[in-house]
């Protein structure tokens, strides 16, 4: 992947506005760099992560790479156009690539429950696996646990990566991440699941099965009593069975989680934080950037989608509004007044977005950034993705 040239440390005064401009993200350099093996797109919901991932994957493939894109929840028509509406948890070739660079694109949509089931099946003997798969707690955990989707996306990424290494297939995996409720969920998911499985409560539930329960204090009675009252005995029993069954798999889970984490930290991974020019989305993006840096995850840059296009004429917004007011007062020129208002509106939005980006850059200097203008229509075919890819590359 590309290494961002270290910027010389400047003394920045309040007027040194150059420090506020983020370096431009060179998307093609990231895609063309053969050592980039994994690209992870993360960001809050509704900022166009899925489209960005798919567009990057298509562009990389048309530039000659063999790419797999793992999407989480693509819009129906986009999924159709890529031929991945069928959820079978396996990458399928996308047809209709352009160019003669010899690249290839496979796409798949994550099936969270199935991925989890497969992990269980690969870790336990058939009898034990069945016992777990049928347990109501497992069903709840695997289909709606906050964090399961994040964890399974990372698990699937690990699998795809191992397969690619083994078979010499894909040389780039682009992964979309779920719209986490919190920016941290997806990085924390593996750790959360394994620390949860290692938690005190789990040990408490499984303790009797582990022989002498000497360390159990009088607390146990209080706790099981309370649980019985709140949840009822049936729930408690299911819970115990579940935990006992899962306990045997625990080592395997932890190890896999650790491997995935290391894979993300490795050289060939590039994280792209995706945002929209809105305070909330940029705040989440800031979180990601800080967190990735903290965890020594390789951050490649920031993509700001849905940017308002700069107005075509540079008439000042205030002047436009003043002129509009004069026309309205005279009761003439409603068309021109409307045009002036539109112009002022757009100038203001562009100005506001610029300020937001500047503040981001000031707080997180040196993060290469690509700004992608808002498209007039939704993207639901390869042509649309190609267009987004080109805009990304323009930065």
């Amino acid at each position, binding site marked *: 992947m590309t290494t961002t040239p270290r910027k010389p440390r400047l003394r920045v005064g309040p007027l040194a506005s150059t420090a506020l401009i983020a370096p431009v993200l060179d998307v093609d350099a990231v895609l063309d760099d053969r050592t980039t093996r994994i690209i992870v797109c993360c960001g809050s*919901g509704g900022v166009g992560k899925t489209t960005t991932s798919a567009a990057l994957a298509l562009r990389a493939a048309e530039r000659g790479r063999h790419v797999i894109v793992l999407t989480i929840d693509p819009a129906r028509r986009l999924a159709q156009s890529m031929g991945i509406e069928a959820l079978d948890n396996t990458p399928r070739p996308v047809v209709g690539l352009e160019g003669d660079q010899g690249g290839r694109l496979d796409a798949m949509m994550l099936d969270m429950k199935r991925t989890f089931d497969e992990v269980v099946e690969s870790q336990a003997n058939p009898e034990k696996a069945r016992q777990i798969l049928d347990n109501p707690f497992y069903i709840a955990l695997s289909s709606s646990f906050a964090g399961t989707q994040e964890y399974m996306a990372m698990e699937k990424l690990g699998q795809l990566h191992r397969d690619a290494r083994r078979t010499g297939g894909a040389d780039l995996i682009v992964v979309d991440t779920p719209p986490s409720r919190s920016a941290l969920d997806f990085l924390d998911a593996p750790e959360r699941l394994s620390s949860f499985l290692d938690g005190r409560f789990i040990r408490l539930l499984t303790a009797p099965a582990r022989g002498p329960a000497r360390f159990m204090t009088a607390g146990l009675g209080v706790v099981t009593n309370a649980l019985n009252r709140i949840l009822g005995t049936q729930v408690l029993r299911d819970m115990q069975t579940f935990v006992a069954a899962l306990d045997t798999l625990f080592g395997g889970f932890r190890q896999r989680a650790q491997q995935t984490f290391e894979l993300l930290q490795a050289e060939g991974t590039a994280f792209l934080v995706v945002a929209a020019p809105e305070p909330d989305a940029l705040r989440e993006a800031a979180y990601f950037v800080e967190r990735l840096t903290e965890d020594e995850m390789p951050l490649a840059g920031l993509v700001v989608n849905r940017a308002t296009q700069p107005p075509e004429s540079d008439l000042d917004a205030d002047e*436009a509004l003043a002129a509009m007011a004069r026309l309205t007062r005279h009761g003439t020129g409603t068309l021109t007044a409307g*045009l002036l208002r539109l112009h002022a509106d757009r100038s203001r939005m562009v100005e506001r977005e610029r300020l937001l980006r500047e503040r981001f850059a000031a707080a997180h200097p040196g993060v290469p950034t690509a700004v992608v203008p808002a498209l007039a229509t939704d993207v639901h075919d390869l042509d649309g993705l190609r267009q987004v890819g080109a805009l990304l590359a323009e930065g």
Partner: protein
Amino acid sequence: MPPTNAPDWPRVQLHVVTGKGGTGKSTIAAALALALASHGRNVLLCEVEGRQGIARMFDVDPLPYAERRIATGLTGPDGRAGSVYALHIDPESALLEYLSMYYKLGRAGRALDRFGVVEFATTIAPGVRDVLLTGKVYEAAKRNRRNKDAIHYDSVVLDAPPTGRIAQFLNVNNELAGLAKMGPIKSQADTVMTLFRSPRTVVHLATVLEEMPVQETTDGIADLRAARLPVGGIVVNLVRPRDLSTEELTAAREGRLDRARIEADLLAANVELLPGLVDGLAAEAHDHAERRALEDSQRALVEELGLPTYELPRLAGGVDLGGLYQLAALLREQGMA
């Protein structure tokens, strides 16, 4: 929808607001709470996703697990305002409160926490977590004789999880079904469902006039109906300014705008005719007209859903506290509150 003075949801006590990410559901929930809080009424605005979005929007300190008065509502026609209170509901606190309230579990409650049970219950079993979150909302909405010191709310607005998850979130019964077929947590879920399915609750959906959010709204409505949850109105957010007439839009799209007239108007309004100005304005109008056409096609789809619809403009300067009151006034004008 024509402006009306009679609010559309007079009997509703609990307004649930959902929407796809990026459609501004939290903004709308906040504006709705302000709009409802007039005429001396008390409104509680709840959030359940741990984002502290309310604190940011209203520019107050991060909210604890306690009701705080955060703003004066929108002044009503009688010149009186009400109050907006806010509550940040997190599952851990809700569980501990639930334990102490219903089971008088002082010591045992703490023991549960110490043994990681609280973490277990709130992370592993999403059904349990949602029962706790919705249970607290229920408690605030149905607050009565049992707790004399507590504030009585005329309405409660819930800034709920996004559209993709809303039916699952509110349908706590169903979520729990696999886990608890009987027992106290199950009966708690039943009670909560009774309120959610009653005419005192509505679920409003926020959207923007783009393909994916509109599609998701349609799907969300189907999910809610399948779960027998009451669907309320649709709030169309971030609508572009509508200063140009249909004819003007068509002309702009086809590049037939009357340039001579625009030039004359600009001169009359004392605007210096810099080179490229008229061309630039025409190009901007063309772009705008294209987007408006797309908005109109999505608006037609929203209308087909046959629900009360409210529209809020995109505020060019972004939404600050003043902007929230502006949006609240627009919601009231359109009869949402």
